[in-house]
């Protein structure tokens, strides 16, 4: 099966700088796809090339089997929802939504019917006669979405769609966007710098850095199986422990052995990586005579430096002699074990939860 949207070796140079450096992606029809990266990662340039606002320096874009690389923005079956929403301030909400249909020279009656239908779907019918400056941020966002969706594009691009909203509204809209995408069955590509947003909304995530694609996969894949140190760091919280290689064995800088089931890369400098929720926190135990089988694979001791309360769970900042570590546990667990700053604790985790990356 061939991909619905195929981005082939796309490159964009501005002078000597490569904003997008040979990105290839295959996106399926009806997929909710996220382009995730920090500012300057090239994600917005990539999106603008898909919309037609930037001409690629090289590479091709195929949509539904058609080469759209050289097509002008107004001739692509692709719509973009702008970060600023870019609503027409001199037109009412209804006129804003009708604009794209008027460009298709549809009959008046059909335009009116489709605008009404769309207004109802995004729950804006009561605001049809308002101008954009009489709307709240969330309402404007929905108008922008409606204006793009009413064209029934093959592909909808969204540039930081929730960036201008406050935190509470943002998490509501994350689910709302997913609902709408499901209802319309349109392929969505969202650009975001917010990894949490990408994890919640997307079917698949592409992580971009310096114009290159670092990893592409489902949220679970990129979270559980990061391909490199940057991806591991960018998605969620990750602890990194610098390692020393002694022949086949690996130890921390202070000599504590680290075991892993991951293949050991050939690089000289390595780090071990482990997620905070994979760590077991226990009291400092002086007797090391416990039977070999009961011993955890990896163990460090450290002193709690800070507790950060996040409602249901708790982040424990622990200073060890190998590296500063963040552990996560539920508030109940923390309370029952009487954990607090200054306490010395043991951290342990399984070899299977230990990843290795070149430092």
């Amino acid at each position, binding site marked *: 099966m061939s991909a619905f949207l195929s981005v082939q070796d796309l490159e964009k140079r501005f002078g000597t700088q490569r904003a997008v450096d040979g990105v290839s992606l295959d996106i399926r029809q009806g997929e909710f796809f996220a382009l995730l990266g920090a500012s300057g990662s090239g994600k917005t340039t990539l999106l603008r090339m898909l919309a037609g606002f930037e001409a690629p320096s090289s590479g091709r874009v195929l949509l539904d089997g058609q080469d759209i690389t050289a097509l002008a923005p*107004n001739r692509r079956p692709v719509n973009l929802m702008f970060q600023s929403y*870019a*609503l027409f301030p001199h037109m009412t909400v209804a006129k804003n939504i009708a604009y794209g249909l008027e*460009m298709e020279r549809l009959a008046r009656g059909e335009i009116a019917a489709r605008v009404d239908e769309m207004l109802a779907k995004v729950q804006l019918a009561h605001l049809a006669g308002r101008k954009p400056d009489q709307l709240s941020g969330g309402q404007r966002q929905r108008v922008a979405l409606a204006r793009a969706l009413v064209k029934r594009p093959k592909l909808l691009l969204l540039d930081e769609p929730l960036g201008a909203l406050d935190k509470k509204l943002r998490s509501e809209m994350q689910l709302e966007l997913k609902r709408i995408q499901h209802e319309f069955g349109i392929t969505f590509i969202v650009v975001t710098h917010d990894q949490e947003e990408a994890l919640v909304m997307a079917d698949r995530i592409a992580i971009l850095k310096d114009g290159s694609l670092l990893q592409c996969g489902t949220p679970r894949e990129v979270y559980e199986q990061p391909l490199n140190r940057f991806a591991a760091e960018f998605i969620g919280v990750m602890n990194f422990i610098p390692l020393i290689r002694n022949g086949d064995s690996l130890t921390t800088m202070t000599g504590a052995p680290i075991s892993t089931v991951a293949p050991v890369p050939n690089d000289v400098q390595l780090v071990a990586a482990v997620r905070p929720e994979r760590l077991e926190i226990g009291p400092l135990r002086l007797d090391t005579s416990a039977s070999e089988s009961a011993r955890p694979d990896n163990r460090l001791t450290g002193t709690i430096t800070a507790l950060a309360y996040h409602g249901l769970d708790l982040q424990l900042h622990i200073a060890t002699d190998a590296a500063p570590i963040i552990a996560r546990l539920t508030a109940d667990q923390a309370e029952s074990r009487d954990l607090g700053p200054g306490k010395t604790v043991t951290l342990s985790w399984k070899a299977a939860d230990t990843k290795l990356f070149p430092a």
Partner: protein
Amino acid sequence: MQDRKSLFLMTPALAWLTAFMVVPCLLILTLAFFRRGVYGGIEYTFTLENLRLVIDPLYAWIFLKSAWIAGLAALIASVIGYAAAFAIAALPRRNQPLVLFFAILPFWSNYLVRTYAWIVLLNREGLIVGLARGLGYEGELPAMLYTETAVVIGLVYNYLPFVILACYAPLSRLNPEIAEASSDLGASGWTTFRRVILPMSFTGLATGFVFVFVLSIGNFVTPALLGGGQFQMVGNLVYAQFLTANDWPFGAAISMVLIAVMMLFLTLQTFVAERGSGGGLR
């Protein structure tokens, strides 16, 4: 409290304008209702004769002619000025102030000097004729100086910076993503201009147009110098009544009508500006 503070801050300006503009103007305008003395001067008996005379075909024609020339100048200046402002606003942002400065530069030189410069350009042995001859054109050349065209050229030239400034303001604040959104929704470049960019910058265009019109219709220097006395505009008429014919009451009556026309246009422009300030500019 806030109102009192602003009233306090506005007092000097209001006092200045009242004492030195409103009062003298009202004094002059009241003259319109008195009779002219036999040997000039004013005879203080009430009459509406002066105002009636303004709508006499002879003078009404001068009004219409002035409005036509001012309107033409305003139209041409608006088109050229809008295009220039559009081009300036499309430049990289850091270059804009300099280009704008050059566009406005002539404005800082003397009005008379600039108008005389056009005489040098337009006269029979002037630069334009010289250039045409130099390029080998031997045929007849139409007279350029002392024509209506010369007056319109002079007015357009002098007031163009107003239009550029008035149009540049909204155009430079236009969020470029709005034009992109129009294109993204399927509009051609021309449709985007007509349906999005022009409506969003229309207040600037209207302001520029009205400014040029109002300044032109009362202008008497340019018609005198570039029109060469071939025809009169309202400004010249007022000038003549006060300084040559010594008929202050009639001069005052013409001024009154002229001010009324200007006020009408300025009010219209304010109305357009109020309506157009619907946001969307950065």
